[in-house]
């Protein structure tokens, strides 16, 4: 087991802890982005090869890292950005409707 994988696990669990314990909607959105960052880091780690360069086969490069996880990381970033934007818009709507960001308060006001 190497240290980067432990860092990924710590980041993931930190984000999950934020999502399941915090009451503030903005903090929950931040937790989602932390989880997403840890997943991107994991994809980069999985594709790592000792001595490998970026997957661009110019002259003189023999060992390159695995290109598939890098393409997947791009997908993750794009989808994560879109999901974060939609979540922030929903948070804005909830704040405008209820005047609060606390999920317990929102539930109470709904009745």
């Amino acid at each position, binding site marked *: *087991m*190497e240290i980067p*994988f432990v860092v*990924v*696990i*710590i980041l*993931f*669990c930190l984000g*999950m*802890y934020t999502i*399941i*314990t915090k009451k503030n909607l903005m903090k929950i959105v931040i937790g989602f982005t932390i989880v997403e960052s840890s997943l991107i880091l*994991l994809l980069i780690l*999985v594709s790592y*090869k000792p001595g490998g360069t*970026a*997957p*661009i*086969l*110019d002259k003189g490069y023999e060992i*390159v890292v*695995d*290109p*598939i996880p*890098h*393409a997947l990381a*791009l*997908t993750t*970033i*794009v*989808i994560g*950005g*879109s*999901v974060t*934007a*939609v979540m*922030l*818009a*929903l948070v*804005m*709507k909830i704040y405008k409707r209820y005047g609060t960001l606390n999920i317990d308060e929102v539930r109470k006001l709904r009745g």
Partner: protein
Amino acid sequence: MNRTNEILKNLYKIGLVVMLAIFLLSIFYEMHNLDSDRKRYLSEHYISEGVQETGAINLVASVLYDYRGFDTLGEVTVILTAAAILSFLVPIRKAAILSNTFTIIVDQTIKWMIPFLAVLGGYLILFGHLSPGGSFVGGVVLAIIPILLTIAYGVEISEYKFKPSKKKLIEDIGAVGFILLGFLGVLTGSNFLASGQANFGIGNAGELISARLIPYLNVMIGIKVGAGLAIIFNSLIKEK
């Protein structure tokens, strides 16, 4: 009684997260051992044959636009959907949180940065099949220009320079153009978005005009991502 309840609840949540950590540890341990077994036939194929098959020396670009071009189409649809949802959800009102209180130094710095950002974004998009970077990154760099204008001068100036209707038009051109370019693969008697079979601009690998459809798909995705991100940012920044 209430306090012990609270403590028990917190302990329960912490326990859940610790269980998750142990679960992830076991999964990642397996993933970590994956490399030693030489099970990656697909990546080996891409690395050894990718340049000959697609003509793009940037392997990530060849995976994104040739081998898995259809998935990229879905990925772009996600951005289109997010921008559509945002312009639907967030009401269009005047921005009040921004005021022009920057000093002249910040103003001039931003003004001088914008041309360089445009050149960098264009370079990243055009050379996406030859160099690190690519259309997604280049699109984000292009989207920084209206975002910087919004931050420096407010949303009115930014939307006067880059009109929202034009941004939406550019985004739609990117999406439709990607699909139309995909049909070139069908016209050459192959699959949708099969750039490897479309005989269109086959140069030597490493030149600017090479790699068949990939540079043109790059341009489409670049303008699409740039316009989409600009729409998303300006929609979120508008509030009462």
